[in-house]
């Protein structure tokens, strides 16, 4: 607190910050590059194996390669590979913001019951043919799943509007919803035919293989609409991590922000989950990895969470095709089995507190 200080001393802080920003920009670029590589590898893998060179040339100049290669890459594999990126990004962003607004490192679309709700909606259609909105065959199950997921989140939302409901209560409500839906799922499986049970179980494992171009575009459109709406609150969301009292003192309205973000991320998660089934791991871990490498300034954390989620699911998609050649293991299983040990190593080797 001395009166006069050298200007150099002051500039130190700024230099530190500029270096920090530069480092983060490099990390973001690095993530984008890594995703491009995994995308190409993902496209190359499948019953018909292509070399990376073939894949890249088919991507850059589709008219130059044979029709067969073009159809396989562009019509069959591309929607699946891109769906992995969009779903990964959506779930990870949803988890990141749930963790932020609920101040809880365990919050994710899974813990708030959104995945479980979607699973229940899908199971109703698969087991008993219960259809909420008649639609094209391809979309009956996603629509069912989406409606149940949204219903779940609106239930939580409307309860959280009540006076005296704290963020801990919201998390507890979410966990309660998970148990309710698990019980309902068990009930469905008890009464349904064996075939139906198999279909339900397969759905809950999560699978990218049903992805098509239209589904991809829908998921992408939702992601592209929600991210700017979240980014608009970037500074306020960063401030939320300092606690409600501090955020309020900085002019943020924590309650209103929390509700708005809750609606946005529920939508994001519900869309993603309804198309691919339950993939629990991404929404929890994507944000933690992003936080680890990029910090919690939302200007980097938000894109970082999206990119980490996309990268993880893309790697998962590659592994699901390579672990047992000839079989595509459901992606939900792969991400958990391979991802969790990796995640444990990451957090245990890290010296600073993660949260």
């Amino acid at each position: 607190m001395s009166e006069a200080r050298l200007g150099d001393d002051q500039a130190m802080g700024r230099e530190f910050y500029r270096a920090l920003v530069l480092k983060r920009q490099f990390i973001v670029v690095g993530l984008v590059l890594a995703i491009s590589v995994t995308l190409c590898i993902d496209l190359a893998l499948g019953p018909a194996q292509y070399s990376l060179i073939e894949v890249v040339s088919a991507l850059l100049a589709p008219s130059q390669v044979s029709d067969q290669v073009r159809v396989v890459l562009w019509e069959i594999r591309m929607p699946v590979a891109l769906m992995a990126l969009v779903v990964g990004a959506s779930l990870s962003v949803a988890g990141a913001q749930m963790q932020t607004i609920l101040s809880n490192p365990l919050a994710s679309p899974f813990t708030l019951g959104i995945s479980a709700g979607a699973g229940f909606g899908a199971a109703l259609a698969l087991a008993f043919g219960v259809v909420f909105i008649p639609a094209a065959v391809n979309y009956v199950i996603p629509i069912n799943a989406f409606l149940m997921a949204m219903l779940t989140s609106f239930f939580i939302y409307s309860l959280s509007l009540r006076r005296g409901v704290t963020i801990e209560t919201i998390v507890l409500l979410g966990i309660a919803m998970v148990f309710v839906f698990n019980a309902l799922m068990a009930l469905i499986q008890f009464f349904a035919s064996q075939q139906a049970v198999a279909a339900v179980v397969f759905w809950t494992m999560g699978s990218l293989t049903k992805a098509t171009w239209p589904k991809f575009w829908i998921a992408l459109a939702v992601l592209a609409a929600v991210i700017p709406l979240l980014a608009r609150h970037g500074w306020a969301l960063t401030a939320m991590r300092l606690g409600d009292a501090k955020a309020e003192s900085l002019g943020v309205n924590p309650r209103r922000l929390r509700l708005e973000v809750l609606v946005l991320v529920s939508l994001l998660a519900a869309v993603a989950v309804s198309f691919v089934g339950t993939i629990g791991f991404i929404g929890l871990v994507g944000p933690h990895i992003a936080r680890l490498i990029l910090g919690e300034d939302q200007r980097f954390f938000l894109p970082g969470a999206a990119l980490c989620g996309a990268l993880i699911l893309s790697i998962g998609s590659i592994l699901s095709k390579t672990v047992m050649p000839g079989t595509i293991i459901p992606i939900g299983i792969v991400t958990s089995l391979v991802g969790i040990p990796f995640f444990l190593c990451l957090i245990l080797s890290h010296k600073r507190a993660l949260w």
Partner: protein
Amino acid sequence: MVTLQLDRLTAYYGRRQILSEISTPLFHGGQVVALLGPNAAGKSTLFRRIFGLLQGGGDIRIEGAKASRPICYMPQENAVNAVLSVYETVLLARMQGRRLKVTPEDLAQVDQTLDELGITALGKRNIGDLSGGQRQLVSAAQALVQAPEILLLDEPTSALDLNRQIGFLSVLRRLAAERRLLVMVALHDLGHALRYTDQAMVLQDGRLTACGQSNEVITPELLRQVYGVAARIESCSKGRPLLILDDVA
């Protein structure tokens, strides 16, 4: 120059009335006003009411302010844990309500604020790893960095060591004078209030029991009535008023 006057201000938590009709004379930029009173007197409540976080009756008259939101507020608690460096924490306080892009002026303002409070060296540290006093200074920096015209500080010195207490209060006094800033600061140390503030308001059970120039308000009678201690105020060898606490009354 900014002025602030409270007129029959009340505040409620639910149905419970905490503040009853607080009216003050006109305070103006350049002044440091001490907000005094025992625990649970309503000091924090008054700050929250002035900042707009609580509803209630009465008027808060602010005139001559240049910005649309001239008040900044440093709350009493600052238990904070996030993966953010001190530099980012202070920066984000400045950036609230602004665009995502950080300008060089923003960085310059952060640098200057950290320097004024003597915490430049903490810039790189994670806020979760700081000591209690360091956190308190960071919290004060968050308020100061917003370039307020009226600054409300809720017990900003409660976790600071002796050196930093008087360092902080003299910086506050200098900034108030230089920037025509109106500072309202809740304090428990009446010796500090006597020495570093111009005006003092004393709250007791949500009522304003005294208000005026610090050296006229802070008297042995007040100490006995409000705080229940027997005390003397004498002149030290350098001519400054000196508070001597004798006993609980």
